[in-house]
């Protein structure tokens, strides 16, 4: 039985890893050569061409910039607003606390759905603005609950002594509570940042201006046109081959390079943040 388990886990690890590896290999292989087939584990005709094309494309660089900007600004703002909110909610003498909490919990189970939200965002004039990335996701009820649980667990004496020393609620929050909350901030920032970086849907329905489109949405547009060429090749293989002969870069090799660039930030930070997200899952799944 043990051998079967090791074998199955090895297969799982391989099938998980292979698509990444194969995409990386194709992104370093000459597009025309990839089209000949058989490129699997190692590049056959090594080239930087695909990446050079990516980094010369202003549209891609702009999209990359928008993604980075929205991830940094969006994560920072959301964590700040949500943490302040959560700290306020830990105060027992907060008037209306019970009603505020009910107001939050309800949103976990009920929502307006896609179309009413869409019409609201339209009505608020957030279409085609950078704000649509940041403002609707400023407050996360889930994160608030996790923050609140963490803040409540901090020793009461610390907050008391700050109060005696003349700190107001805001002062206590920024000088005492926040510096003690490193791990929980790191965990929640990580998940918020990943969500921002990976989001392609919000821009695809709210953004029409090209310069505001982030990398994931642009990548989707490029991959869609890629599918178009694939179905074209089904109809007429000769035509597709002719198309490929014009240049060494194919839409496939190029999109693999873009995919690698869009994945890179996540793969780079991944080893360092692993211990945080394991912790994060467990905090998140704790019953309130």
């Amino acid at each position, binding site marked *: *039985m*043990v051998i079967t388990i090791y074998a199955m*886990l090895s297969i*799982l*690890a391989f*099938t998980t*890893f*292979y*698509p990444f590896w194969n*995409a990386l290999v*194709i992104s370093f292989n000459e597009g025309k050569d990839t*089209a000949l*087939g*058989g490129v699997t584990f190692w590049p056959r005709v090594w080239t930087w061409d695909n990446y050079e094309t990516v980094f010369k494309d202003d549209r891609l660089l702009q999209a990359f910039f928008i993604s980075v900007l929205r991830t940094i600004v969006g994560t920072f703002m959301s964590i700040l*607003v*949500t943490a*302040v*909110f959560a700290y*306020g909610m830990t105060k027992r003498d907060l*008037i*209306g606390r019970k009603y505020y909490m009910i*107001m939050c919990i309800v*949103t976990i189970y*009920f*929502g*307006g*759905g*896609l*179309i*009413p*939200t869409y*019409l*609201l965002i339209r009505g*608020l004039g957030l279409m085609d603005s950078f704000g649509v990335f940041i403002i609707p996701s400023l*407050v996360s009820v889930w994160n608030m609950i996790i923050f609140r649980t963490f803040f409540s667990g901090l020793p009461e004496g610390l907050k008391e002594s700050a109060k005696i020393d003349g700190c107001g*609620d*805001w002062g206590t929050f920024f000088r005492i509570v926040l510096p003690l909350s490193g791990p929980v901030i790191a965990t929640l920032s990580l998940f918020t940042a990943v969500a921002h970086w*990976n*989001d*392609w*849907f919000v821009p695809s329905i709210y953004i029409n201006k090209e310069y505001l489109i982030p990398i*994931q*949405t642009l*990548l*989707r547009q490029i*991959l*869609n046109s890629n*599918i178009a060429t*694939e179905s074209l*090749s089904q109809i007429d293989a000769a035509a597709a081959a002719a198309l490929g002969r014009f240049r060494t870069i194919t839409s*496939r090799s190029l*999109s693999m390079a873009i995919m690698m660039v869009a*994945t890179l930030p*996540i793969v780079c930070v991944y*080893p360092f943040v*692993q211990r945080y997200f*394991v912790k994060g899952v*467990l905090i998140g*799944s704790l*019953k309130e």
Partner: protein
Amino acid sequence: MTQLTIQTKKTGSAGAGVVIRIIRQWQVQLMVLPALALIFVFNYLPMYGVLTAFKDYNLIKGFNASPWVGFKHFEAFFQSPDFLKVMRNTLVISGLKFFIGFPAPIVLALMLNEVRHRFFKRFVQSVSYLPYFISWVIVAGFISSMLSIDNGSVNILLQKLKLIDEPLSFLSMPQYFWTILITANIWKDIGFNSIVFLAAIAGIDQTMYEAAEVDGASKFKQMFLITLPSIMPVVIIFMILAIGNLLNAGFEDILLLAKNPILWNVSDVLETYVFRIGIENLRYSFATAIGLFRAVISVILLVFANLIARRYGSSLW
């Protein structure tokens, strides 16, 4: 009469008292009120906007000026030829996700628990968590590259194994769509979803295993008689959540993998249907009605699942 005036005076002064007390604690109130305002705007206004489903919404006229039409859009949906198709796809896809996708991480956790080499275990865990953090756009890109008709790795492998003669264009063949979709979902989430179950396993009292060993229970028996029953409470909680999600067959994954219109017959589920009807065909009221229908059934399912779970001693609320 006099009593009445006294009473109003009392409540009036109490109301003023609350206002004064709120103003006195303005610092804390200032922490929570802006966030609550945002929640009100972005969560509660759309709930009111659900009424769009009972109107003939017109972008130019706006919400208030659009006429009320009652249940017209619901009736239209139930009678449309798409209704049965969309419901079937929704139930089949979410059913497959539930019966295959839900147990998969539990099986993985049980297997990882049997691994004694720490390095191997950590390696498998690290690799299997990674896809969870990759966007669906990129996952869909991987899949269409793997399954590509011109030299996708899957086609190369199947041809080498002599299972197929000609490369197949898997992503434009309706009969393979459900398999691809479920596999992709398991591929992406299995590792990450196993974390919770692994943690539950780690919390099991080790002396139980020692006792079982003394009694001569095999590893296999220990897995079924100790590990699995011990993590059952956690499994049940996640099962309730999964049942509440039975009408969420998927959204991003289906939207991205079913680009070819040939697939729509097997890929259209309630959520993606709402998206296409509403955002792409601009039939806002009709789409809102479908979304509302889905939301109502979901809440009923969640309450129902929780009722069952309560019988077995675990409950969400």
